[in-house]
């Protein structure tokens, strides 16, 4: 017996004409449906997202065809991934059938679905179909029986699951009916095990009955597939096409870098975004690419502390406004409480399987509130802004006292060059406001100097000429104040002639290394952690090990913004630390609440984020909570007390741990 099957068995080749006419019609509906959406994307501002194509395509390959982003979350992610692989195999199988039956065979009499390849083809597709069905059933059970909290389920979901299951089932039934009539009892049938199973009910029927059932099923199956194509643009099935496209159009970095506004633009009538048309086209496209998987919402520290912000809902609201009422005020729809709740921790963006950019949209709307309305989350923030304008720091401390902490070290004989006064050094240590003025955080600055001094690196500071880097102001939307502060810092840095900058504050580090580039600063900027890790590796810095039980908090601006996960752990190891990792660590780290300028704002809604994080740290049983950020330090000092954990948990900066172990 020949190892193959007859394509168009029973229905005959005559179906080709109506079939292709109908397929063309369905595709026309699909294209028409998508084209209609194009007009809405075009409401947004221009943005180049087609450059570096190879990089973009390889991302699509990795994240779509290998499901890399999707598979990062076990359970639903795994199910989606496996379903996807099954679905792709079935699509490839169907394409092979099409190539043979409608192209190669009629034109050249060429058939390749024969022999051992056919056997392989047959069994792979059968298993793929089975896996796809099991995964869909699993996903249906999750959605409708297990009902994960706050998973947005709409009619689309039932339609998608139902349609896909119906297509797969009718496919198998179709195969079963055909096999009952043609393959049952042959060895060949074993190569279609699922088909064989579905053939059993038809086994006892007459061939005529089998043929008429088959014919009916064929048309039904075909109709379902046509329906599937037509449904894509009008349901959440959109994501089949738009999510891969969104991965292609994704932001290629630097991670978390914001667009720099041209504030001198005389033509500009408004700044930031209050309407859909103020956003970029990609922001609207993002909304369409959302799969409603709620991974962002699950990780959002604001959502998890009972604040009104859900990154997913925010994206969905932008989509709704864009497609239903594009002239509406976005900020009124989303509400200011939502916008001010964001700590810009990037947990949402980091996990999004569709590469949606949540944070820049929030910042654009904050920019509108601040620059156009003069509005802030509270009077305390307005005050901090004014303090920064006048004193160069949000705390309102006297600028002349900014480097007082350094005097104490100088008195001990440690040299710290005053770069603003013409002295020179290998590196400029950009101290930041909290390490400059807060007695607790000054210990971090002192530790860094001591470590550098032990490693033989000469360090200079800008002293009282250093200003706030502007990060909290920028993240709160005050682009004007940020650019003012940045310009003053850049002028001082350039005048100092220094060639390298190191900061122990992740917020300063991220801002100086990524954001200042647009304003003319092009020096290498490093965080103290990676800088010291290198000194340790080269042997310049020697540490003696002394045991310490601790847990480590990955600060958002070090981890998710800069991928600095290993350097701090290497340093801790070198210091002799035993690390108890928190459940939420590295990419999954939970924000301390200080990001996004929230350090300047009162946390008025919901549970305290810093207390929640302190509790997570305490759960590890470690008595020390190590972090690498002055903002985190301030938050944990308060959070630990607020959560009544001060008896069992103490916050330390990594640099403090290291400085105690200088060899």
């Amino acid at each position: 017996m020949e190892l193959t099957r007859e394509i168009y068995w029973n229905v005959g080749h005559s179906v080709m004409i109506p079939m292709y006419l109908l397929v063309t019609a369905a595709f026309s509906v699909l294209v028409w449906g998508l084209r209609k959406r194009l007009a809405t994307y075009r409401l947004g501002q221009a943005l180049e997202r087609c450059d570096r194509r190879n990089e973009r395509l390889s991302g699509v390959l990795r994240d779509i065809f290998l499901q890399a982003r999707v598979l990062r979350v076990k359970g639903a992610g795994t199910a989606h991934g496996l379903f996807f692989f099954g679905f792709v195999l079935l699509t490839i199988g169907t394409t092979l059938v099409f190539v043979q039956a409608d192209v190669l065979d009629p034109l050249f009499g060429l058939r390749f679905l024969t022999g051992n390849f056919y056997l392989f083809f047959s069994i792979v597709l059968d298993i793929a179909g089975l896996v796809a069905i099991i995964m869909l059933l699993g996903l249906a059970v999750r959605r409708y029986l297990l009902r994960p909290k706050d998973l947005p389920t709409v009619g689309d979901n039932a339609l998608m699951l139902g349609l896909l299951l119906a297509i797969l089932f009718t496919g198998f039934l179709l195969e079963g009916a055909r096999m009952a009539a043609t393959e049952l009892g042959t060895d060949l049938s074993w190569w279609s095990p699922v088909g064989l199973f579905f053939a059993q009910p038809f086994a006892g029927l007459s061939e005529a009955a089998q043929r008429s059932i088959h014919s009916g099923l064929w048309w039904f199956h075909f109709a379902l597939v046509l329906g599937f194509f037509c449904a894509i643009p009008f349901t959440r099935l959109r994501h089949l096409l738009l999510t891969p496209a969104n991965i292609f159009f994704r932001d290629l970095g630097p991670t978390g870098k914001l667009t720099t506004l041209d504030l001198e633009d005389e033509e500009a009538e408004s700044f930031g975004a209050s309407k859909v048309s103020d956003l970029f086209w990609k922001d609207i496209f993002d909304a369409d690419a959302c799969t409603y998987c709620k991974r962002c919402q699950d990780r959002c520290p604001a959502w998890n502390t009972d604040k009104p912000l859900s990154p997913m809902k925010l994206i969905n609201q932008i989509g709704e406004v864009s497609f239903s009422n594009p002239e509406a005020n976005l900020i009124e729809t989303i509400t200011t409480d939502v916008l001010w709740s964001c700590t810009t921790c990037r947990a949402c963006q980091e996990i999004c399987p569709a590469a949606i950019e949540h944070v820049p949209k929030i910042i654009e709307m904050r920019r509108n509130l601040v620059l156009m309305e003069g509005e802030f989350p509270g009077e305390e923030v307005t005050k901090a802004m004014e303090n920064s304008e006048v004193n160069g720091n949000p705390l309102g401390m006297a600028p002349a006292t900014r480097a007082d902490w350094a005097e104490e070290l100088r008195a001990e004989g440690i040299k710290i060059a005053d770069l603003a006064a013409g002295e020179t050094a290998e590196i400029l240590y950009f101290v930041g406001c909290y390490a400059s003025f807060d007695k607790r955080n000054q210990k971090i600055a002192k530790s860094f100097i001591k470590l550098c001094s032990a490693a033989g690196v000469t360090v200079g500071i800008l002293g009282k000429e250093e200003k706030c880097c502007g990060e909290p102001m920028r993240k709160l939307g005050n682009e004007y104040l940020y650019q003012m502060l940045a310009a003053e810092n850049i002028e001082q840095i350039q005048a100092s002639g220094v060639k390298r900058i190191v900061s122990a504050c992740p917020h300063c580090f991220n801002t100086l290394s990524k954001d200042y580039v647009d304003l003319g600063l092009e020096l290498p900027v490093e965080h103290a952690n990676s800088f010291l890790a290198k000194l340790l590796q080269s042997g310049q810095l020697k540490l003696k090990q002394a045991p310490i039980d601790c847990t480590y908090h990955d600060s958002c601006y070090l981890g998710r913004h800069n991928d600095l996960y290993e350097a701090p752990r290497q340093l801790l190891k070198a210091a002799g630390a035993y690390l108890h990792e928190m459940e939420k660590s590295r990419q999954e780290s939970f924000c301390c609440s200080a990001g996004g300028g929230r350090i300047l704002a009162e946390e008025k809604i919901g549970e305290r984020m810093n207390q929640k994080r302190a509790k997570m740290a305490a759960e590890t049983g470690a008595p020390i909570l190590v972090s690498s950020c002055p903002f985190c330090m301030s938050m944990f000092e308060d959070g630990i007390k607020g959560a009544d954990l001060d008896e069992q948990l103490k916050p330390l900066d990594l640099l403090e741990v290291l400085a105690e172990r200088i060899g």
Partner: protein
Amino acid sequence: MNILVCIKQVPDMESRFKVAASGTWFEESDLAWRINEYDEFAIEQAVQLKTEVSGADLTVLSIGPARVKEALKKALAMGCDRAVNLVDEAAHEKDSFQIASAIAAFAKEKNFDLIFTGMQSQDRGSGQVGVLVAEMLGIPALTTAVEFAYADNSVTVRRELEGGLRAAIKASTPALVSCQLGLNTPRYPTLPNIMKAKRKEMLEIPVADLLKEEARLTTLSLAYPEKKGSAQILEGDVADLVDQVIGILKEKTAVL
């Protein structure tokens, strides 16, 4: 309606003050400058009034060296129409009477319907200039305003008295209102207004053109009261500590 708001640029009170060589005022190096807090309420009230009354014109005035233009620019960004700098390199040597005389000389022919000032300045805190200007111009002064209303050429002000008490008073324009903290919420200038402010008129008048009076007050010296930064540390038995603390509070503060 013609409105004038008088503002002063003062050092941020957190600044590290150093007594100048003259021994009568502080050195200007290392100071961070800002609009006197009370005057921000005055500006805000004037701007609010301007938007309520059609055709109002709002002038902001400040006496001092070139640096006060920064304060004037902020006032323009908040919504004033034009700025006047009475240029005086030695404004800190003038007493309240002289400052008021210069302002009154400027305001005399201008027929301002309303003049707003802060209740006092943060650096000198004498609280005289507003009332003096009004007296010199012969118009009523309504001081320490925590509420303000204008209707039909008359102003109603709630004055803040001691112990949570307020007094409501009323006067016809022209009048002068001195503003207490909390009168309103001073706005944060929007970016378009900051940009517009750059193109607004900034008039400079040498103070000597307006001021002919001699000072009536002589500053003999300026000094630090006591050194902060090193707290007096008290240790021991609680009962003794309580007595010591009461003694210190009586001696060093006016609260007991």
